[in-house]
């Protein structure tokens, strides 16, 4: 019996059933870094901690919908993805924000002179992927989720996850080899 596997789900049940704030705090501590890096790799160079806050707030709001049959990480990334989609919509609505964002990216890229060229290459290559492909790489490679869970989070068939991952890896390889 592996207790560690069930701990997240057990804590989430405590949050759902008895509004257990200690259990919620434990979940935040365990997963905030994962979610922060999720947004960071989605090219959010500023305000990514605010998106992490929104994700956990959403997790709390939707706690009554949590079912034990779902892994907590699946549920959490569903929330994070929705927060990311809302954020993109917001950015599209406010056009000048997009410009500011682009400037911000340039500023942060410039400030990263101490970071190795290799890392910059990978970051740059990831940015060249479409959102759909990047999301599959993020969940499959960086977060290590199995394809079944990625399919649940992105609400697409598992076969599509597979083909997107293959195309993403091939594209990344091509970009990096060019450099």
């Amino acid at each position: 019996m592996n207790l560690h596997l069930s701990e997240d789900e057990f804590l989430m049940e405590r949050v759902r059933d008895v509004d257990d704030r200690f259990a919620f705090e434990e979940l935040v501590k365990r997963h905030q870094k994962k979610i922060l890096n999720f947004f960071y790799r989605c090219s959010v160079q500023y305000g990514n901690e605010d998106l992490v806050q929104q994700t956990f707030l959403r997790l709390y709001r939707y706690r009554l919908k949590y079912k034990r049959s779902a892994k907590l990480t699946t549920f959490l990334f569903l929330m994070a993805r929705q927060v990311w989609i809302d954020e993109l919509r917001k950015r599209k609505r406010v056009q000048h924000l997009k410009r500011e964002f682009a400037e911000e990216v340039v500023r942060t890229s410039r400030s990263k002179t101490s970071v190795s060229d290799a890392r910059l290459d990978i970051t740059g290559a990831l940015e060249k992927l479409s959102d759909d492909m990047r999301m599959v790489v993020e969940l499959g490679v960086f977060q290590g989720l199995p394809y079944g869970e990625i399919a649940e989070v992105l609400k697409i068939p598992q076969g599509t996850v597979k083909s997107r991952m293959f195309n993403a890896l091939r594209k990344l390889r091509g970009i990096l080899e060019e450099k």
Partner: protein
Amino acid sequence: MNVCRHIDELASSSEAQAFRVLTERLSEMSEIEPSKGLTSLILKRVELESRCRRDHLCSYAFRPWFGALAAAVVVFIVLALRFLYPASDSSANCVLSDEQWLADSQEQDGSWNPARHGGANSYCPSLTALSALALYRSGGDYSDAVQQARRYLISKQQTNGSFGGEGRELFYNQAIVTFVLAETGSSVSAIETLNNAVDFIHSRQAVDGSWGYATGSEGSQAITAWQVQALSSAKKNGIVNADVCMRKGLRWLRDIASSGKQMDYNIRSGRSSDTISALAGYVLVTAGSDFPEISALGRNVVASIKQQQDSQNPNLYRDCMKVRALKAIGRNAGAQSVKKQMVAVTDDIQNDQWGKVGGRLYYSSMHTLARTY
């Protein structure tokens, strides 16, 4: 299927190798750390949100038209129900129906199946044990049903001594089944089962004497009180190993009670739960009966619980624990009053905090048990 297996499946080995190198490079990318205050910021936002929602709901409750409408609807429903179902059952009939229903709903193998009665299957051992205990204590002729349930529970013990489940289910199942096996009789096979069950409880005890909702997590008053109660009953059945870890657990509960901390499911909540006060207080009084100081402390804890019914939050587990604890310290009138209030709660399983966990098995066992104290 994950990315590694996907790559292994690729037809072109050179491409697979290139992808492996690429995913390794990606995985090695450094990550950023969250700022130190992020956790507390998130918790503050959640607290703010839940407070706003509470205020919002309260503002509706105090609107006169809303109150009048709600009252009218309640009166209409009560009258309609009285018309449709005239109240003819005496409380004696209710006693009979709860017990009889439990006896009738036992499965062939001796268990009770929670899924059939609105409960959660993961708590099957606990609910089987509680149903058997209710029948055992009821004083009716249910010895066959109880023995069958005992055989079922003994057969379900795993090689490590546990009765199954994960996380909190594991600890509730373990304590409740151990307690009930110890309380409902003794046999050679049961003694062996109890020995193994006690060893398992012992193996999961934290250094400070407590047990938490999961192995290695912070001590919980609820879980610790249940384990101490189980160990105390096992000790009375001659299980020698139970003594030392029971004393350690008892000391932990005593320290919590004497430090002025509130009794709740969570040690850090700062709130007080009548359920846990009644449970832990009872355990301090009974398991700590050899230690006058601990027993006296338990009496104080029990004396602090509210006797009036919290009609907004039906909770038969809480009420049953209250009846038992009040009776244990000689407050018979208080216990009687809680019992009467329990009779009034008839079909509110859906709103009961534990209704979804135990369904009608929980409801019938709690009603039956409360009447036996």
